[in-house]
């Protein structure tokens, strides 16, 4: 196991290093931030001074070298826009994204497995119809539309929920609900398909023949064996959320990492872009390790 973890860590560090190189040079190809940060009528002297302060006058390779030297000392640089350490800015935002993604994925996983299993047990039955409905909604309705319609109905219309913001549990209802729908529809379909295969297998038929109760047949014998592809999809969806739910964060005023990354790209805030990419990449690396461990826990044939 240790060997496996070390191997994964080394390959992730290499990937991360290549990613940093690519992002560092590509982001600088997009233009000089001086024009964005100073007023359009700022003097040439002010512009030169700005570039000097932020190290933009140095040759690109020297800028990269300086950045890497700082990085090995865990100094991610300062945000030009916020005049603060870029890592602090990113971690503050990442906590919000982590909460939003965590709550949503917990709910999605629980309900998708429950409903998908019941749908698979009785194909064409009421649970199966509900599963099909949610899959269709998840695949076809865009997030921003669901979010705005949700605000119009539940906030402006009924006055049940706040339009946006944070502060109470009620503030989380609409954002989580909007984020919930798409992965729920997708994972539901994967659970259903995988469970149909599992429930038609010989060991489940044997269990039924032996008189095992339907609940145990589905959730003990069938589910455990159907979970491997489901975990893969759950991991994929969770990784997407850890990169930030830009639409939901923007509309509901959640100060998450997705919105931060988009704003930083538009503002040419290079240190924040790089820090955000590294933090999310690290989080995804950790999540992939957890998924690998889950594979091993569910299937005794898998050993690292």
């Amino acid at each position, binding site marked *: 196991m240790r060997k496996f973890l070390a191997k994964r860590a080394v390959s992730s560090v290499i990937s991360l290093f290549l990613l940093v190189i690519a992002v560092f040079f590509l982001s600088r190809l997009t233009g000089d931030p001086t024009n964005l940060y100073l007023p359009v009528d700022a*003097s040439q002297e002010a512009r030169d001074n700005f570039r000097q302060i932020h190290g933009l006058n140095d040759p690109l390779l020297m800028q990269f070298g300086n950045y890497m030297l700082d990085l090995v000392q865990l100094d991610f640089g300062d945000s030009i826009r916020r005049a603060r350490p870029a890592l602090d800015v990113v971690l503050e935002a990442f906590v919000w994204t982590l909460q939003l993604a965590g709550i949503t994925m917990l709910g999605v996983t629980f309900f998708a497995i429950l409903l998908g299993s019941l749908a698979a047990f009785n194909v064409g039955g009421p649970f199966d119809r509900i599963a099909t409905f949610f899959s269709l909604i998840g695949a076809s309705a865009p997030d921003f539309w669901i979010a*705005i319609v949700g605000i119009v109905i539940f*906030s402006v219309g009924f006055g049940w929920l706040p339009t946006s*913001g944070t502060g109470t549990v*009620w503030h989380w209802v609409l954002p989580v609900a909007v984020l919930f729908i798409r992965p729920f529809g997708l994972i539901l379909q994967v659970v259903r398909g995988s469970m149909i295969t599992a429930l038609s297998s010989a060991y489940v038929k044997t269990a039924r023949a032996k008189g095992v109760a339907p609940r145990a047949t589905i959730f003990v014998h069938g589910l455990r064996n159907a979970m491997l592809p489901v975990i893969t999809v759950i991991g994929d969806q969770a990784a997407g959320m850890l990169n930030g739910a830009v639409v939901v964060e923007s509309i509901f005023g959640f*100060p998450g990492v997705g919105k931060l990354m988009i704003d930083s790209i*538009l503002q040419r805030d290079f240190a924040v872009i790089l820090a955000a990419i590294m933090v999310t990449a690290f989080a995804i690396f950790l999540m992939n390790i957890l998924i690998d461990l889950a594979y091993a826990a569910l299937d005794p044939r898998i050993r690292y």
Partner: protein
Amino acid sequence: MNYRTHLLCGAAVLALTGPAFAADTDVTIALNEELEVVEPCMASQSNIGRVLLQNISETMTELNTENGNLMPRLAESWEDMGDGTWRFNLREGVTFSDGTTLDAADIKHSMERTVSPDLTCEIGAKFFGGMTITPTIVDDLTIDLTSDPAQPILPLLMSTLTIVPSETPMEFTREPVGTGPYVLSEWNIGQSIVLDRRDDYWGEQPVVTKATYVFRSDDAVRAAMVATGEADISPLISQNDATNPATDFSYPNSETTYLRIDSSLPPLNDERVRRALNMAVDREAFLGTLIPADAKIATHMTVPTTLGAGVELDVPAYDPEGAKALLEEARADGVPVDTEILLLGRLGNFPNVTEVMEALQQMLGDAGFTTTLEMVEVAQWVEHYSKPFAAGDKPALVMAMHDNNRGDPVFSMYFKYACDGLQSGICDEQLETDIAEATATAGEGRGPAWEEVFARAHEISSDVFLFHMVGYSRVSERLDFTPTIATNSELQLSQIKFK
């Protein structure tokens, strides 16, 4: 516990997690953009200015944007001492929110800090570039400011300089201290900023006791927040959301849209071609369709309330046939009128900007021009807008929107029209002389001097002026507050009353 007990406990928890009741005199303001810094010397940025300007940080003078008059604020009076020196007499008994008393040393430090090369303050770069200001303390409440070159409008410039205590370090502060009626009491990064009223403010106590600023980038959400009572003011909503006459206001936002002509290259260096461009645009057709009906057709670079901009200039008549005739005349004289012209717009510059650019391209095409339309994001656009122009040797028309609510054209005209002006597309000897004269003129003659500048720019068809724009705000019915032209850059809580 049975299920009823569970339900009751759940209800109690949810009730306790609900929002605390706010005082009747507290307000919530929904802004479209988060504040990344709360630095007073950056308060010329509208998102920062709406929170800090005159609420936390005050200035020595204050511009009345309605009538263009300059009013005392931290300075009670000022006088021209000659040779570029102005003397400012400070108000007595003014204290900062940290308890220290305002004196001339604070003014000196604020001035030096704002123009310091270590900070790159926007106020310094925007209003004090190209000049040197030397502060000299006369006594605790008197300071001389000497500018080189001499600035007849130095008192007006002082309406932009935010005053901080002399202890403020030479780096961006995260705890702004000012003399204003409010103090920053909470900054929840990315979520909200809270200002509380000071009890020891030197002036009249405002009615609003506490202001909470929240940040929502979506127009519809900000409008919905005021509609549901979650917020009291949204200074900026979209025209589409401004549907309730009881709460929604349009106001001139001091922005002027225009096509900047690069007159250094043929065929745009020919005055007939520039006149033809102006005649090709049907400005009336935009109003009430792609541009709000309340917007005004522009003939100047600045809004009419700016000094000298009240001069009546004719709107170029929409005459595509006349434009074609002018182009033919120019062609006969060897002007390459068929040269392809780049028509460049900036994505998100104002609502419907892409559609406006497409309509302009159509109108120019109907008048015989050949154009290619490009819509770019802000960073690329700036490279075309400021010298050296990125289009290189390709003639270009750049859609721009210029904001000047400071009451004097000097903040606009040099940059836009002088031969060395950073965004100037023209170099005209007479215009250059007129700008220099108007800039140096003080007193009664300054207005007429600027009138001549506007008239000359109009005469040589320097640009294709389009509209003085409007913005839309939503204000709760419980407030007695009407947005004005100043709302684009500041939102003084002391001007908010309750019905």
